[in-house]
């Protein structure tokens, strides 16, 4: 019996559905749910995480994120402007900086600045927060510089010409005409970078942190060590999600809005 093309497509689709359902049922039957939930999501361990996971760990993660973002944005703007400068050494310096810090893993930068330099020079970080925030900002600024540069280049050339023809100097035209428009364009990618930064702060936990500066990931890991149970990490993961999900949804909303506006 010959099937039409449409009938064949439908038969294939039902086949995929049936296989998926069978796989889910098989997993549900063979997994020991009691044991699994005992190891991953033990309720008394969940409640034990609070309130410290919020008042200390999440707070530290936010501190690292906010200062890392502010530092990264400030330096990123500077490097973006240097990259667009007519002064060749500025362009070279910014391009080299950006390539280096985008090409080296954050973990390596953290270890180098956190351990390598103190060991080599005997210099000590004056503040344990700075030890995490400085490398984080350095790396974030390299990524943000490229985002900001793209934003500035997306502003039509006529805007700079109009500003200059009114007698504004280059710095003033940049500050009052070009950069405000560039930032409107790059709010969605910049928010995405904020989300990445929130997650990247977890790497700071490889530096020996004091009890007071523990971030979410370190808090969860220490919880796993002391309870021999994965629940604290699951809770930490959920707290990360509570921070990142609203931001990714915000980006999705902004992108839908610009799409609707440009239609």
């Amino acid at each position, binding site marked *: 019996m010959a099937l039409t093309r449409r009938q064949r497509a439908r038969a294939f689709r039902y086949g995929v559905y049936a296989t998926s359902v069978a796989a889910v049922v098989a997993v549900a039957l063979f997994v020991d749910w009691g044991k699994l939930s005992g190891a991953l999501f033990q309720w008394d361990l969940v409640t034990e995480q609070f309130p410290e996971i919020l008042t200390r760990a999440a707070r530290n993660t936010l501190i690292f994120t906010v200062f890392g973002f502010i530092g990264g944005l400030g330096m990123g703007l500077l490097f973006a402007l240097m990259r667009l400068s007519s002064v060749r050494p500025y362009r070279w310096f910014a391009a080299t900086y950006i390539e280096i810090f985008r090409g080296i893993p954050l973990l390596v930068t953290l270890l180098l600045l956190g351990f390598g330099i103190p060991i080599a020079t005997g210099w000590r970080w004056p503040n344990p927060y700075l030890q995490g925030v400085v490398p984080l900002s350095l790396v974030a600024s390299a990524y943000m510089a490229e985002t900001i540069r793209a934003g500035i280049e997306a502003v*039509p050339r*006529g*805007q700079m*010409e*109009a*500003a*200059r*023809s*009114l*007698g*504004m*100097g280059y710095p*003033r035209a940049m500050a*009052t*005409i070009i950069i*405000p*428009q560039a930032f*409107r364009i790059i709010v969605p990618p910049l928010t995405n970078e904020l989300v990445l930064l929130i997650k990247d702060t977890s790497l700071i936990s490889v530096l020996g942190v004091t009890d007071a500066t523990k971030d979410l990931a370190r808090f969860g890991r220490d919880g796993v060590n002391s309870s021999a149970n994965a629940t604290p990490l699951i809770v930490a993961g959920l707290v990360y999600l509570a921070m990142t999900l609203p931001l990714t949804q915000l980006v999705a909303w902004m992108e839908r809005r610009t799409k609707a506006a440009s239609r």
Partner: protein
Amino acid sequence: MNEPVVRISGLHKKFGDNHVLRGIDLDVGRGEVVCIIGPSGSGKSTLLRCVNMLETPTGGTVRVLDHELTDPDCDIDRARTRIGMVFQSFNLFPHMSVLDNICVAQRKVLKRSAEDSAARARQLLARVGLSEKEAAYPAQLSGGQQQRVAIARALAMDPAVMLFDEATSALDPELVGEVLGVMRALADEGMTMLVVTHEMGFAANVASRVVFMDGGVVVESGPPAEVLGNPREERTRRFLASVRNH
């Protein structure tokens, strides 16, 4: 003749191997309206952009009032406050209201107070017939309205000369008239104007002098009745025939 507002002499501009301006001499006297016509690629927009140094000339001099713009020591930003420019693509600042578009340079460059610059802006908006639009944003305006705001923005600096770079070429045909009307009123009030245009009617009726450019040189220049009505040069005749034949 009075001292010219704009004095261009021996102006050359090359883009790489492309020799766009090949020695232009042109003076614009106070209150004169000079219309530059010519085929596309003739260098007329480049010439205009050299007058306020949006393009840096390769050779020759440009002088506006007592500013020698081609002198490396010239304070270009200060000189530009005396030279208004209106672009084909309007180039209003989309993140600012109409009023702020007209006020921003008055405040940041001329250091006028907020009240003074707003008062001047409202006066100019009335002049271009857009008083009721001061709170609107550029995206809410038609092309003709945007270009009228752009004219008001340039006038707010109290320029000694206004440059129009194909100010009506990007407009829908039914909106061309309102912008030309504003330009004509400006000319009638005695503004010194250098106008690159394809509007032959405007050149014929408003210009005190018409300059025909082709291939980077001034081919012919004189009163509109002569250049447009009875051109001496064969190239001018061919150009005029081609623009009138469609």
